């Protein structure tokens, strides 16, 4: 098993997910023996802990049609889902910004709907 796969396996385990959740809630729980100067592997582990936390949270809330436990178990499908989710969120953000811009359209004169000022940010 390669090192990154191993790190992901540990990070997605219920055991570590519970420790991570408790550490965030309580604050005084130490995840590692060292308190500072984290290694690259530890940083990678922290990254995957937070990614899998968000995936489990989305799974519980049934946020996405295509997310189930099998996706989380399979690293290739998980990578694919994470990319797709980021694209969906980007699209949502773009849509929101466009709507915000549209709502800033102001009519110059009341009753005259043919001309208006557009505030493009």
């Amino acid at each position: 098993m390669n090192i990154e796969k191993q790190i992901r396996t540990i990070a997605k385990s219920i055991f570590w997910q519970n420790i991570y959740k408790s550490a965030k809630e309580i604050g005084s729980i130490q995840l590692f023996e060292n308190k500072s100067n984290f290694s690259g592997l530890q940083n990678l582990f922290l990254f995957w802990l937070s990614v899998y936390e968000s995936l489990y949270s989305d799974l519980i809330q049934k946020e996405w049609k295509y997310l189930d436990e099998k996706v989380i178990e399979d690293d290739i499908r998980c990578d694919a889902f994470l990319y797709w989710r980021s694209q969906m969120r980007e699209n949502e953000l773009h849509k929101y910004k466009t709507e915000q811009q549209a709502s800033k359209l102001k009519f110059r004169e009341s009753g005259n709907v043919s001309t208006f000022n557009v505030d493009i940010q």
Partner: protein
Amino acid sequence: MDNKEILNESISELFKSNYDDSLIKDNKLCFTVNEQLYRVRMPNQGEQSLAEHKKNLIQLEYLKQEGCITKNQLIRQLKLNNVIDIEHLEELRESLSKELKRFWFLLATKDSGDKKKISEYSENITKIQESLQRLSLDIASHLSPSLESRLEKFYVEYITFICAEYHPDKEWKKVWDTLEDFNKADTVLTNKAIASMTWLLLNKR
């Protein structure tokens, strides 16, 4: 199932899901060579500064050497002499990355029941990722004589020399006293130590 059995099963389940956390439990990485236990540890701030300082000094030495070439100069030379077109390889890498994203998109929108398509797309993704890996290795090996690559190699080797330890009896001791000792040492050991250090420093450089 009685209470004892339930408890035993729970404990074994706990251990199963705990996995091996030796990679992340601290900022060190252990490895063995010829049944001897070794480890590399994260350099502290002083050691990192020292390695940077040594790297700057060695840069001056490298610059004086005949044939010293920067990465950009080397890329131009490799193309001019029809050895390899690195820019073309970079473009290839870009197009493979786009292809990877296309398959990720297709795979992500498949229901878990659609095993045939999932397997087909997963295989394609694995092949693309392997091609990307080969391409990166190819680029890196062609650029290894460049000043930038040599300096990066020196830095990792120097940090490895400082931070590699072995465990002969009761406590951890430095493996090499001088950089010269490190350079003269068995390459099986130095290569393994450098590889472990590279993992330990992952994304930190």
